[in-house]
């Protein structure tokens, strides 16, 4: 238990110490906000308004939860992948040669990466006034544990990937074939309607899909939207034909995290022998 805390603590201390990184990691989400929110926002809004007669439809409101999820995904994956660098030389050996159990090492690292991502994600909310989006305090309080849970799911994925890669060389590959597709195939940046079957299948398995959807349901007053807008904006997710509920999404993310932590632990044990 103490071991989990120590590994987690190390990431937290370093996060608060590294101010430049903290600021630097905002550049990408802000770029995406500008491109998708303002650039595409206008045409999306007029399209939706024309199709559904929704008067005060604000596209940025849909984009923001997606961009926060993207921040959670990127930060937690990159944070988890840093153990590859640490593994063969460097601090990971200090951890591995200690009596902390392997599964606790995985949990500690997952919590560390997730916390760093969570803090980055929460910091994004200072942009809300600039974007002209409001959020009621209760929704915000509900959002916090949900965001942390989402970050845990992503961090555990990063951990599993790290256990399978044996060098940092695979890093760029991971970004290209995993992170970017996960963002594009999640509905984070634009709604995914009428996709070919295999794409829908990937969307259904993608944990980012449910993270983004959960956040949207908490942040946006979905009930007040007309059925047409909900459909257009991809808010009616299905899971192999079944309508997706928020409880279902929570269970999916928790199950995903548990499974991947176990797989990562097994994979680390194997790599060590």
């Amino acid at each position, binding site marked *: 238990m103490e071991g989990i805390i*120590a590994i987690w603590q190390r990431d937290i201390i370093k996060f608060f110490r590294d101010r430049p990184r903290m600021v630097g990691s905002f550049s990408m989400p802000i770029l995406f906000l500008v491109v998708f929110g303002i650039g595409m926002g206008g045409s999306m809004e007029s399209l939706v308004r024309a199709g559904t007669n929704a008067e005060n439809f604000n596209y940025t409101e849909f984009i923001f939860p997606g961009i926060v999820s993207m921040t959670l995904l990127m930060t937690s994956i990159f944070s988890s992948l840093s153990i590859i660098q640490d593994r063969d030389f460097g601090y990971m050996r200090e951890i591995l040669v200690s009596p902390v159990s392997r599964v606790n090492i995985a949990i500690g690292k997952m919590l560390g990466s997730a916390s760093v991502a969570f803090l980055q994600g929460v910091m994004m909310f200072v942009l809300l006034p600039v974007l002209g989006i409001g959020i009621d305090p209760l929704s915000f309080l509900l959002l916090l544990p949900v965001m942390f849970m989402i970050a845990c799911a992503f961090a555990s994925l990063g951990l599993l990937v790290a256990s399978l890669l044996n060098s940092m060389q695979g890093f760029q590959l991971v970004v290209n074939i995993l992170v970017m597709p996960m963002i594009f195939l999640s509905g984070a940046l634009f709604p995914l309607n009428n996709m070919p079957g295999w794409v829908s299948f990937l969307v259904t398995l993608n944990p980012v899909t449910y993270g983004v959807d959960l956040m949207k349901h908490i942040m946006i007053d979905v009930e007040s939207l007309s059925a047409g807008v909900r459909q257009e904006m991809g808010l009616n997710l299905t899971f192999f034909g079944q309508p997706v509920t928020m409880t279902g999404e929570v269970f999916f993310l928790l199950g995903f995290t548990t499974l991947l932590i176990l797989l990562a632990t097994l994979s680390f044990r194997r790599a060590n022998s």
Partner: protein
Amino acid sequence: MIEVNNLKKNYKSFQAVKNSNFRVEQGEIFGFLGPNGAGKSTTINILSTMLPPTSGTVTINGYDVVKEQNRVRESIGIIFQQNTLDEKLTAKENLMLHCKFYGISRAQRKSRIDEVLEIVDLKESIGTLVEKFSGGMQRRLEIARGLLHYPKVLFLDEPTVGLDPQTRAHVWEYILKLKEKENITMFLTTHYLDEAEISDRIAIMDHGEIIAIDTPKRLKQQLGGDIIEITTSDNEAAMKEIRENFDVVDLSLKDDVIYCKVENSDAFVSEFIKTLQTPLTGLDIRKPTLNDVFLSFTGREIRD
């Protein structure tokens, strides 16, 4: 304290460690000497549970390194060949995390940290970021950290590699001080000959094989005497004279220098100078070094 039986380690088809057997007793400093690539780090990584052996058994403090990894991990401290400090953290933070990894109780942490920093003379730097430390200070901090949980055995893999000679001497001073104070069992590797000398016993390793194990003194004695390097105006004639008049263990000529091995250099030299006909230009008496030991076993020298 350490027992190694028929230990082998292969990387794919490459044999990094070939059938090794040795024991290290409680309180002993045991040195592993060998050139780069000999298999020293591989051995130390197996002994510290970081690498599984291909075959053979190893027990540390009575625990098997494969079957009882956690017991072994609790019993050992290790200073790896590469730095494993977190440079973005302070000395204190590095030590605090270590306390937590090893389950040292909250009440004991502060006094333990003070104690080990005292040993390596880093008390003033407790709050400094490790990246601000010099190479020698980082090494000392690693040694301090390795001691924090009172290990039964301390492994040191090339603890002074990459340090300047003065700092090297400094680090060894601390290691010896430690040995005196704590009576801890130490297993160290080095490819510096002079460093191996401080060991109670040495295993000489080459190409994954242990070729000799003994105290430094006995290893050198085994060579059968001192080496005298002689230069003369006519080496051929001088060698002929030596062969005829003296009882030498070994005689050879290399690069215009005659290497003459004798059992007792004092007796030999006084007689030699008196009787030699060929004009003498130089004479140097050398006690055998571990390099000579290595040379005699492998026909090569250990080079840095």
